[in-house]
């Protein structure tokens, strides 16, 4: 793995401790992980294994209790709330299991959201949001609201929102968890396309082996530690669109 390039993600010994009353529970107990640009990685593990916690920390949505995290060579720990927000807005696109779109707000406006906080002009915002929705195959659904879209379509809006800022990496926490297998397959198709055509680094959590095998690398996590890290010799190809 040490082939000279600066890793996009370089997490060392990440520890996250939650306090539940008197007892301290470690969700992450010293996880180390490196991800190079252009990789597509699946993280697998049982529920409660700490995979979502790892994702949240890598996505700068949460901060580790201990450990070091370098994003594109820059240390992230010790940054304040607003600096983290800026990193989230510029370098990271996050996709949630439950989509987390603003209700009663059109797909286009949802996708524009990160650009507003990045301080982009209205016209540029509109153009880029439209392009992002086009990239996920929703050009004809731009003015629909989340409740007028299917789960798969909502997740595609969320992906469009994640990639609209041209982030360094897209992180997804069980992106297919709430979807039927066909929609899940579609989402994988989009991820593979973004990875292959744009060289976008993509990392997602799943507990479905079939979904995980769409990637080039599978990281397994158990009890807050990384227990296995293997390349996928023959990745599954989602049906192209």
């Amino acid at each position, binding site marked *: 793995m040490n082939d000279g390039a600066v890793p996009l993600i370089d997490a060392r010994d990440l520890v996250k401790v939650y306090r539940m009353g008197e007892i301290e529970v470690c969700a992450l107990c010293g996880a180390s992980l490196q991800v190079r640009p252009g990789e597509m990685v699946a993280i697998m593990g049982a529920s409660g294994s700490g995979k979502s916690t790892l994702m949240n920390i890598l996505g700068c949505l949460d901060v580790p209790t201990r450990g070091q995290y370098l994003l594109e060579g820059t240390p992230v720990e010790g940054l304040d709330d607003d600096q983290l927000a800026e990193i*989230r807005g510029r370098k990271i696109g996050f996709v949630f299991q439950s989509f987390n779109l603003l*209700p009663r707000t059109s797909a286009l406006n949802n996708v524009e959201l*990160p650009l507003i906080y990045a301080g982009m002009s209205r016209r540029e915002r509109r153009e880029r949001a439209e392009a992002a929705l086009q990239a996920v195959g929703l050009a004809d659904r731009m003015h629909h609201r989340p409740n007028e879209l299917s789960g798969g379509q909502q997740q595609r809006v969320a992906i469009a929102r994640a990639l609209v800022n041209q982030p360094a990496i897209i992180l997804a926490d069980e992106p297919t968890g709430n979807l039927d297998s066909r929609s899940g397959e579609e989402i994988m198709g989009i991820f593979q396309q973004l990875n292959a055509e744009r060289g976008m680094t993509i990392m997602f959590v799943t507990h479905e082996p079939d979904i995980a095998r769409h990637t080039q690398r599978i990281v397994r996590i158990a009890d807050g530690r990384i227990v296995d890290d293997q390349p996928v010799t023959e990745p599954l190809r989602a049906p192209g669109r």
Partner: protein
Amino acid sequence: MSLLESARIALRALAVNKLRAVLTMLGIIIGVGAVIALLSVGYGFEDYISQQFAGLGSNLLFVFPGQLDQGGPPGRRTTARVQPLTLGDAEAIADPFQVPDVAAVAAEYSRQGTVVRGGRERSTQIVGAPPQFQNVRNFTVIEGEFIGQDQVNARSRVAVLGAKPARELFDADEYPIGQTIKLNDVPFRVIGVLAEKGGGAFGNQDDIIVIPISTAQTRLFKAPVSRGALAVSIIYVQVASPEAMDQVADRVTDVLRERHRISFRDDDDFSIISQSDLIQVFGNFTAVFTVVLGAIAGISLVVGGIGIMNIMLVSVTERTREIGIRKAVGARRRDILLQFLVEAIVLSMIGGAFGIAFGYLCSILVANLASLNTVVRADAILLATTFSAAVGLFFGIYPATRAARLNPIDALRYE
């Protein structure tokens, strides 16, 4: 992120949640509207009272027979020994050698009576008065003329109609002057009509018919005779200058005590009340009234404030998730706060504007229904809007501040 952009986000968020926006505004509208309406009624009432006294005429002393109850036990009133005031008393007061600094004196002899014209019959106050009555009581004649001294001397059957009987006895296209009306079955000729004054502190000042005092005392009613002169109901004394009021009141007291032969041990059997006494009595009353209105207005402000507070706090759950989403895609704390600040300001401003309009409408409505000159004053508007805006701002921003401090994951998990 620019202020303009925050405003746009806030307006979009409001447009997306129209029902919530309207409910929040409703609290502000009711709070602001109620305070403005209530205070306008209060001010209108004060205004009304002071106008009533201004309408009575200026520098007036009212002399009544008997002791007005000063709040003591009812049994204290010494009605048995009361002598009526008479024309003789009025003449004595009018004598500049006995009471100096008097501009005019008018005695009145009045009774409730029935007036009939054609098929219309109504009950009204029939006031027997001398010519001075018009100036002393500040009446304006809009048609014809007032009662003259000749008519008093001749005990003529002539009548001057107050605005109300004139309106009710005659159609708008009829000319009342020269027509005949019957007062207690005695025919009178209408010679004048008085201008409208508005309701008075002593009953309606417009619901009267004025006839010569001599006619009232001898031809229409039978006024008792006391010490060789005819009785009167009340004597109005117009004093030459405001400074002389107390002195004139003292002199009138002396003259009347002497004329009524009241020994130094006994109380007066008459009462002298000045306009300032009346204003003082009614001033206490209006003060209480204003306090009551103010309390009601305060309650409605608090209730409105609680309404604003509730709806703002209730929407927190949903907004906490929204804040989580916004933060996850790069919103800084400042961006979130600015959005909520602008939302709260917009709500308060629109709600305040509607509230002012609503209060104004209520005030106009009351003015029309109760013929009260309601006044919408700037301080009422300022008080109501400031309070509502402050409540809206605080309860709009406080939960948002808390939510903005959460890290995005906790905010997204918030249920």
